[in-house]
């Protein structure tokens, strides 16, 4: 009998680690490292899913979330939308298997990409309470109710029960019910804050949150959905070596020429020929047969060759009008200015920056300005200081716009700053998806937008100051008039009241002229 070698013994113990199992051990990567953040993440994933599903189907989103405590540290979460629903046969995989989704391989601006979101929530629920999740869905026909769990070792859905109900009202959508361990707070980095910013970025959505401390309702501000972003092929400048390898392996093209022109945007026949020449590869070589060195040469050539920038209709900005309306409503500010920059490109990825500044009104005086960061309409609540968007703000000199600011800090004043970064690929600094990486092109665009908005805000602030000055002047005269009238009356023995009235008439005439001038300018 041949003795088993150590290597053979070790290989016998080796087995595949399922993605679900991996994430069970690394739940912080998905945003579940503590109970406060976990609570927020579950709500966030449900909302992101619902917003994506409804807008893609051209439906104005109606989202209801309820979160009620079942005991001291457990909550029952019910999230319901009016989306298109999920086909019965796809439900087990759509909700019970990691990395199963339609979005990972395409380049288009969307909220989630990796297919991890809602699965993470289900898995977290299962890990902390051991209870199954209940999915209710309909595509307008029958209603299907699934009770299921995820088989962590196999990364497979495990259906506990499946019932079918009649659907006389033709309801469509998805309702998810799960129980989690969590902690609810209402300050910064909380669910209410997240919902508020989500409402600003998605003013066409109607969201009701029935939380532990009562109901929050975010009304629909506009009744139109934004333009659907188009899907684009990757631009050669933005393709990493690993991705190129994957695309090469998966392509149906028979020649390199065909591969380059059909799998990438902005590559025509001439550009494809140039790439092949630079990479010293035959145009009719089979893409699947390239060896490692050849792929490296191809990748290098793709970065060098001169190409037109990628198309930008794959982006869906909020737009200046929508931003202004939503922002004004949620902040209670007196004045809002919004700027949408033209699309730009970083490393072959189209992106677009939008900035909103809300000033005055209900916003607190003499405090550091609040910063709302949004990536593809999703609020980023954590890691503010590591984010390129924050850096762009602290790098901008707001003192030029009549606001106070210490060097390298956020400005101070009754101000909220909103920055929306829209791109087919958001360069997050980590899996937690809370901070945007520092690409010079991105920081530059954000600063340009901030400066443009800042100039407009400065105009308003100066107008306000002028108006306040005028008010102040009027108050001064009004304060002194009784004393002057009384003194004049003593000197001349004339009636004080008559003198008082005459002086007050004069003040009115004098300030009325000036006020109408002011309001003309403001209009």
């Amino acid at each position, binding site marked *: 009998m041949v003795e088993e070698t150590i290597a053979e013994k070790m290989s016998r113990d080796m087995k595949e680690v399922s993605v679900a199992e991996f994430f069970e051990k690394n739940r912080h990567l998905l945003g579940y490292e503590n109970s406060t953040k976990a609570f927020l993440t579950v709500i966030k994933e449900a909302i992101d899913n619902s917003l994506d599903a409804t807008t893609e189907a051209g439906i104005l989103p109606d989202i209801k979330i309820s979160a009620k405590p079942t005991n001291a540290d457990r909550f029952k979460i019910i999230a319901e939308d009016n989306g298109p629903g999920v086909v019965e046969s796809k439900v087990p995989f759509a909700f019970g298997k990691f990395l199963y989704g339609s979005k990972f391989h395409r380049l288009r601006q969307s909220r989630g990409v990796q297919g991890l979101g809602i699965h993470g929530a289900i898995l977290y629920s299962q890990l902390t309470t051991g209870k199954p999740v209940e999915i209710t869905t309909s595509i307008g026909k029958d209603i299907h109710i699934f009770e299921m769990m995820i088989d962590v070792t196999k990364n497979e859905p495990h259906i506990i029960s499946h019932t079918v109900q009649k659907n006389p009202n033709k309801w469509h959508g998805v309702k998810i019910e799960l129980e989690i361990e969590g902690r609810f707070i209402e300050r910064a980095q909380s669910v209410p804050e997240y919902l508020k910013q989500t409402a600003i970025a998605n003013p066409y959505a109607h969201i009701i949150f029935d939380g532990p401390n009562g109901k929050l309702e975010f009304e629909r501000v506009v009744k139109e959905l934004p333009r659907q972003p188009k899907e684009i092929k990757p631009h050669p400048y933005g393709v990493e070596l690993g991705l190129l390898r994957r695309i090469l392996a998966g392509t149906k093209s028979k020649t390199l020429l065909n591969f380059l022109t059909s799998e990438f945007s902005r590559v025509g026949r001439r550009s494809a020929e140039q790439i092949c020449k630079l990479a010293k590869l035959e145009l009719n070589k089979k893409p699947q047969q390239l060896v490692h060195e050849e792929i490296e040469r191809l990748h290098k050539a793709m970065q060098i060759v001169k190409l037109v920038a990628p198309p930008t209709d794959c982006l869906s900005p909020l737009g200046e009008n929508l931003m202004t309306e939503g922002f004004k409503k949620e902040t209670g500010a007196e004045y809002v200015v919004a700027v949408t920059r033209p699309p730009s490109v970083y490393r072959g990825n189209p992106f677009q920056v939008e900035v909103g500044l809300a000033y005055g009104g209900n916003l607190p005086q003499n405090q550091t300005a609040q910063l709302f960061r949004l990536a593809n309409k999703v609020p980023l609540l954590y890691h503010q200081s590591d984010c390129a968007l924050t850096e762009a703000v602290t790098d901008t000199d707001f003192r030029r716009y009549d606001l106070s600011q210490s060097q390298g800090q956020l400005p101070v004043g009754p101000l909220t700053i909103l920055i929306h970064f829209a791109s087919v690929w958001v360069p997050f600094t980590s899996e937690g998806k809370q901070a945007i990486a520092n690409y010079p092109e991105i920081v530059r665009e954000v600063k340009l937008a901030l400066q443009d908005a800042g100039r407009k805000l400065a105009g308003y602030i100066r107008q306000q100051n002028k108006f306040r000055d005028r008010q102040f002047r009027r108050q*001064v005269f009004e304060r002194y008039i009784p004393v*002057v009238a009384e*003194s*004049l009356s003593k*000197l*001349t023995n004339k009636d004080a009241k008559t003198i008082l009235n005459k002086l007050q008439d004069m003040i009115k005439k004098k300030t009325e002229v000036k006020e109408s001038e002011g309001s003309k300018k403001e209009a």
Partner: protein
Amino acid sequence: MKEVKKKLEDLGEKTLNDIEKGENPSIDIPIRSLSNVVYDSKTKMLTIGNKSAKRYFFNVAHAKKFMQSFLVAAFCKELQDQNLHTSLRDLFYALKRTFPNSQENTFDEQSESDPTVVDLEVALDILREQLHLNADVRGRVVGNVVIEDRGDLVDWSKLGSGGWAIPSNIEDITFKKVKADYILVIEKNAAFERLHEDKFWQRNKAILITTQGQPARGTRRLIQRLATEFNLPVFVFTDLDAYGLYIYSVIKYGSISLAHVSDRLGTPHAKFLGLTMDDVDKFNLKSFTIRAEEVDIKRAQEMMKYKWFQKPEWQRLLKSLIDRKIKAELESLSGKGLKFITEEYLPAKIKNKEFLD
């Protein structure tokens, strides 16, 4: 005084007229700063020039002062009507009040109401005394003099160690007996008391007056009346520093801020006795001097530019203050011995006629 009352009423009527016509009400007030003060070398007096500034009510920068001027004017009219007198301090407290629904006062400090009174004096060409307002009392006098004040006979030689406190209003005093060869005006009270204790005035037939710092209007008017009515020389004895020299110039020529009444307050023939820098050297007082402060030097530099300090001897004295960066106070002379001033310094100075003019 009827004329005063009329002037106050006219001011009110003129302003009412402005209002009736829909014009921004204003008062003309002559400017009281160095730029509008003229030194007349013939009469040896500072007089006010003819520059004036309009103070408007509907102008944020003027409104408060305008309001204050009328508040004071109305108060003065009431004093006239009831024939009452009061002090500047009283006026301040009588008129200080807080506006309803605000933190603002009509006047915050007396230093705001005092200049308003002077503004009114200048604008209406009336003396403060005629407005029935008295300044704070400051200054004392001793000497072989008998006066009558409000029906009382007062003998300045029989008032003990304190002497007679000079009142604000000197106009109604009559001199019954004046036996003196000269008037010695002393800046510091301590030096005055030293001289009084040594009976300096008796032995030297002098009238001793202390101004106790910057001379009050009453003290200046008293010096002027005694000097002119009895033809007495006036010698001024102050600290050796820019402020001391300015006290002398105020007694002699009048002051910048009250240039409009120099003719009633100035004593052009007054002479400066000391202390001078030459005295410091001659009487060996160097060890009693102290270091001059930055403000002393600055003040001396300013005064070198004044037209009435242009004589070479004054320029030399001011320059020595700046160059040597020292000053001396009258009190410090006691260091030379308690009787140094009375028995050595003053007799020598007066005998040798060592004065600056």
